[in-house]
């Protein structure tokens, strides 16, 4: 079962800003990749696992670029290497969408007061 289910409409704006930061990180990363290895800026683009184009160095670079950009834009230090990130079924690095959902979820939990 997916630990990071699609988020609710209420959280849509937050999800969009997270997705924007992830796309910006992909843009930065793509400068260091040959044309055929560049990652598409689409929710379904695979980051890690079957069909993924990134090697381990590329993925590590993406992680630090994204962590830095998330900190710069959201003011939160997020460690993307926690929570079994590379699990084939549930890891948040499977696709851009799974990563955006994971981060949005973390952001919600850190910033919202429980009801």
């Amino acid at each position, binding site marked *: 079962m997916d630990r990071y289910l699609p988020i609710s409409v209420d959280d849509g704006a937050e999800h969009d800003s997270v997705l924007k930061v992830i796309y910006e990180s992909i843009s*930065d*990363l793509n*400068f*260091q*990749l*040959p*044309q055929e290895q560049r990652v598409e800026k689409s929710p379904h683009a695979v980051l890690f696992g079957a069909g993924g184009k990134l090697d*381990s*160095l590329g993925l*590590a*670079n993406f*992680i*630090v*670029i994204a*962590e*830095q950009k998330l900190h710069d834009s959201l003011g939160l230090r997020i460690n993307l*290497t926690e929570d079994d990130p590379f699990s084939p079924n549930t890891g948040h690095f499977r696709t851009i969408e799974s990563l955006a959902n994971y981060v949005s979820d973390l952001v919600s939990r850190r910033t919202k007061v429980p009801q």
Partner: protein
Amino acid sequence: MSSANHLQADRSTALKLYLISDFNLETLGNYLSNDSTWPQVAAASAPFGQVFPALLHPHSDPSDFALVWTSPEKVVPAFGDNLNNVEVDEDRVLAELGEFTNCLQQAQRHFRAIFVVSWTIPAYERGNNLLGLRRSGPRRLLLKMNLALAEKLESCASVYLLDGQRWMDENSYSPKLWYLTKTPFHPAVFSRAAGDLKAAISAVLGASRKLLVVDLDNVLWGGAVGDVGWEDLRLGGHDYVGEALLDFQKALKSLRNRGILLAIASKNDEGIAMEALTKHPQMVLRPDDFAATRINWNDKAANVAELAEELNLGLQSVVFIDDNPIERARVREALPEVYVPEWPADKTLFASTLLQMVCFDAANITAEDASRQQMVATDRHRKLSRQMVGSAEEWLLSCQTVVTVEEQCDANRERVVQLLNKTNQMNLATRRLSTQELQAWLQPANRKLWTFKVSDKFGDSGLTGILSLEIGSEIAWITDFVLSCRVMGRNVESVMVAFAAQHCAGLGLQELRADYFPTAKNKPCFRFWMSSGFSYDEGKNRFLWFPRQPYQFPRGIEVRLQSLPVSI
């Protein structure tokens, strides 16, 4: 024997760069290899942690470049001890550093050029803050080490030090990347380093820009001088825009002081604009600071092309700055070789934008560079006098030209390499050589290279010509025949050919050959050789002379061998 052993500059081939480090530099290699702008670079990493073996026994070609980026505590273990608060003797630090610089010195023969990155330490290495810069503090020691590194590398002609600190900010060191991949830096550091490295390679290849063409209204000063008059322009004073534009002019002047030519292309009334340049009390740049001007209502692209032609420069040497995006687009479209940077609308950013531009970077600044503006001014006087004197021959005779011939030596080597790598138009073979490659080429006793300095009654044009010969038992080949565009058409070409023919006659040689290697830019050289009196073999693109027949030196030019007159 043939003169075909030249290395033609080829803009389509990627230059090889060998990355040598004690950490993982693959990300830098990726940035470089995947950037398609010129110069294209194909980076290959030596196994990391093998700095000394990779420098001394590289798997590279002598035409390859190398980048050496090391951690200070690994190259100088004494510094590592210092970081751990172990007291170290400064002599030990310098001895360990000396081993590194000796190794770099020896490695020069393996590479066309070596770039070494100065040492840095992470911002989070606070070193007990207050004590960092005190005696035996790590930051103080690192400053000393970088200074010693710079001083020791000063004598290495093909080793260049890059300032690594420029690429660092508070987030530059990434512990996560270090533990994951043995890469100490955030990718942004490598992105910035790749930009500087490409600029450095371009500078070593002699491809830096030489002419900066600027607009006037809202670039050199605020406001349109034709509308408000020079008295009401925004320049200097207690006005933030005026102060910013004053600083921009100072930045332009500093470029001019290191040999970049300035020119004006402005849609204005020339008299009004020149009055502003002359009379405004705060004006930093005066009319004499500009090598040429086009102040009229003509098309800007046509004006920029005319300015380059007047100054004998190719369009690939030109940068154009204008505040109007339509003018920028027009010049970009009409003259794609001219570099037209996007220019900020915010005038407070003008000076910093100019200072950040990498296209003016030079590997060395020679005496000729520093006095270029003066030389252009004397050239202007020369041209004026030419208009006043009747025939071209009459005018040349009146110039009292002196050509001083000198063998290649330590004192002129830097300028020789610069001329070889920069000259396009009057260049027979367009060989692009590093100092090391030139020295290696000159090793056999049958190869000679002479330099030609030119002066006349108007001024000194400096070292502007190169002639090299490869001499066999019966035949000699002219390998390099290079003359700066600054002195083209003043019969110095004929002096050089006559000198070569006379030298070969003295050795009793049967033939003097010159093989022409065509490029997109050296047609003027071909035209000169076609008029030189040599016979031409079209199939081989070869010019031929039989030295038993004397080749006449041109009339009216005094030729001196070093400081002694040559009998001609």
